[in-house]
């Protein structure tokens, strides 16, 4: 038996901020959920199952938060699942939710992902020194900066490309009412002038630390018939790999390439750059835009990515708009960041992205990665029902 068609009919998100001291974790989730349900013209009573995701528990210091959140999330009397794949969790949570519909298990699934980073300190949480080891770890930036350097060397990229991406995403964020960072004065020059934090990564080339949540309502074909603009799911893929292995490609991981190949095949796409109208790619450090453009097959390896970013093709009015929402570089509630990519892709093909809408977008990519570039989750959504 093949997969049942499934579609996103509701997308909701919070106003992302450095500190949302006005709401509890439950309140943060409900803000996104209530917007998604209103968008879907549904109430919690219409929902069959809840799937929740968030990044490592150390980020809030609450083990298994799904336990205390169950009632507030409206999960009493319903199945409640929690998904956990580090930074990619928002994406994999959406995929688990969609699979419940595609498998015919449930008709209407609500999925929510969140992070309340202000309750902890992610830099600390990712750098706890272990006995016997050398304490040189320095958060996510310290982890990824050497691999960015490897990409720059391998692709012979000019060093200002990261700044072009950062300035572009920060300008896009001005069009997104929910985005965390709103810095109208950000330019390539101002990014280049910002402090070098983890050389070669500058301050303005990094994502902020945000409180926020995202929620989606994913439904079966019959339910989707009532929606004026469902985003049909054309393909979903998750892949993982070992964090460390001899000669593991840390710039363009095998799991990422395999996931992309499987995704395009599922979605019936042969030339991503020609067939995808908008992409929401997980870019927590600006250089990951060109890196993932290559890994995902939008551009040739070892240089095609930075040439695309440098040319302006990834701007909203470019050939291949990337992160019109402002992306992770403008809002990063870690656990929700992947679902925001998936949700923003759905908004694009529903024609519901507001000021950051790409005119006539019909197919869009949502992408997330996590851990030491070891977890990948991605989907393609379209304005038309899939034919395959």
């Amino acid at each position, binding site marked *: 038996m093949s997969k049942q068609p499934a579609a996103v009919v509701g997308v909701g998100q919070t106003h992302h901020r450095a500190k949302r001291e006005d709401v*509890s974790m439950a309140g943060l989730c*409900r803000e996104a959920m209530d917007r998604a349900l209103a968008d879907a013209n549904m109430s919690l009573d219409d929902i069959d199952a809840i799937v929740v995701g968030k990044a490592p528990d150390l980020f809030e210091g609450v083990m298994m938060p799904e336990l205390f959140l169950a009632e507030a999330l409206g999960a009493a009397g319903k199945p409640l699942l929690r998904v956990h794949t580090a930074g990619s969790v928002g994406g994999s949570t959406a995929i688990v939710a969609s699979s419940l519909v595609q498998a015919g298990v449930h008709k209407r699934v609500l999925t929510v992902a969140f992070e309340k980073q202000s309750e902890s300190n992610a830099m600390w949480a990712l750098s706890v020194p*272990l006995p016997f080891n050398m304490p040189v770890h320095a958060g996510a930036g310290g982890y990824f900066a050497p691999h960015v350097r490897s990409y720059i060397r391998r692709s012979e990229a000019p060093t200002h490309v990261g700044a072009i991406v950062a300035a572009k995403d920060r300008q896009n964020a001005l069009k997104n009412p929910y985005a965390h960072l709103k810095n109208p004065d950000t330019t390539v020059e101002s990014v280049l002038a910002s402090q070098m934090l983890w050389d070669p990564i500058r301050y303005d080339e990094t994502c902020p630390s945000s409180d926020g949540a995202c929620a989606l309502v994913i439904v079966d074909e019959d339910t989707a018939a009532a929606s004026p603009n469902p985003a049909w799911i054309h393909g979903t893929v998750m892949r993982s790999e070992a964090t460390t292995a001899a000669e593991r490609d840390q710039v363009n991981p095998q799991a990422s390439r395999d996931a992309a190949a499987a995704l395009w095949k599922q979605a019936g796409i042969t030339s991503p750059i020609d067939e995808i109208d908008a992409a929401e790619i997980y870019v927590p450090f600006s250089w990951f835009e060109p890196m993932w453009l290559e890994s995902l097959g939008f551009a040739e390896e070892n240089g095609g990515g930075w040439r695309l970013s440098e040319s302006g093709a990834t701007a909203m009015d470019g050939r291949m708009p990337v992160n019109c929402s402002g992306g992770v570089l403008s809002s990063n509630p870690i656990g929700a960041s992947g679902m925001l990519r998936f949700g923003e892709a759905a908004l694009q093909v529903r024609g519901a992205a507001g000021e950051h809408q790409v005119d006539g977008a019909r197919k869009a990519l949502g992408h997330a990665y996590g851990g030491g570039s070891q977890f990948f989750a991605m989907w393609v959504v379209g304005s038309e029902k899939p034919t395959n």
Partner: protein
Amino acid sequence: MTRTLSAPVTVAFDYTRSTGPVIGRFLTGLRDGQIVGGRTSEGKVVVPPPEFDPVTHEAITDFVDVAPVGTVTSWTWVPEPVKDQPFDRPFAFALIQLDGADVPMLHALDVASPDEVSTGMRVQVRWRAERVGAITDIEAFEPATDAGPTGVEALGTNPVTGVVVPVSLDYLYAASPEESAFYRGLNEGRILGQRCPTCQKVYVPPRSACPADGTPTAEEVEVSQTGTITTFCVVNVPFLGQKITPPYVSAYVLLDGADIAVLHLILGVPAAEVRMGMRVKAVWKPREEWTYSLENIDHFEPTGDPDAEYDTYKQHL
């Protein structure tokens, strides 16, 4: 001699919680000597108030003061209290339905022996003098007296919106047998790895099994103390818990004879002069400072030899 090495590690952080309007209202009440419940859509008064109605799922907005006196509906005796429990002497945990509430709440009941507790007994609040907006503002419940509980004054004017929750977890970190051999080698001034019998790759530190093909590894290999910087970053950012003062160079060093790089510190050269391909050697701490740790190697520093060709290490990026 034990086969594996282990060492204590404590993971501790003072988490800050935003209470939101409902829990905030409850905690504000406790600080001011009042117990606040929430009325649900079915008309039930619940203490502490739930954030969202269990039936309509709407936010709870109808708050009700309940009495500081109630009835025990069930209980359990705690004969040997553990750290951070309400008392260091035996006490009861009790479910107490306060007058005016429709469901019980959990708290400590301060009595000397289980003979003094019974379901149905009347109990009253004993307030703490220093109240901060926490469930522990109620020191405990105690058997009801004719005079009733001693009332207390409100202690603040601003609503409680946040609480600090210190979390501290003590672990015993255990190294695997293979890692233990590696750390023992470091205690002898040697850098040991293991070769995978399937793919022939040499792992430093050794894993119990090859991450690429899953084969258990056994053959011990001593690798060189000289190697090549494959890639690196310059850490300029200070952060909580940091052990090395920035700026410092954190680099992947591919030791000669190994097939995977180790992350270590580069010194003896200005950060701006560190390069991919630079040849470096281990600089050990004085022998009397050695333990069983990669920190026995203080840092790596340039050998002064010509840089390695890019082609010799590019597959390690």
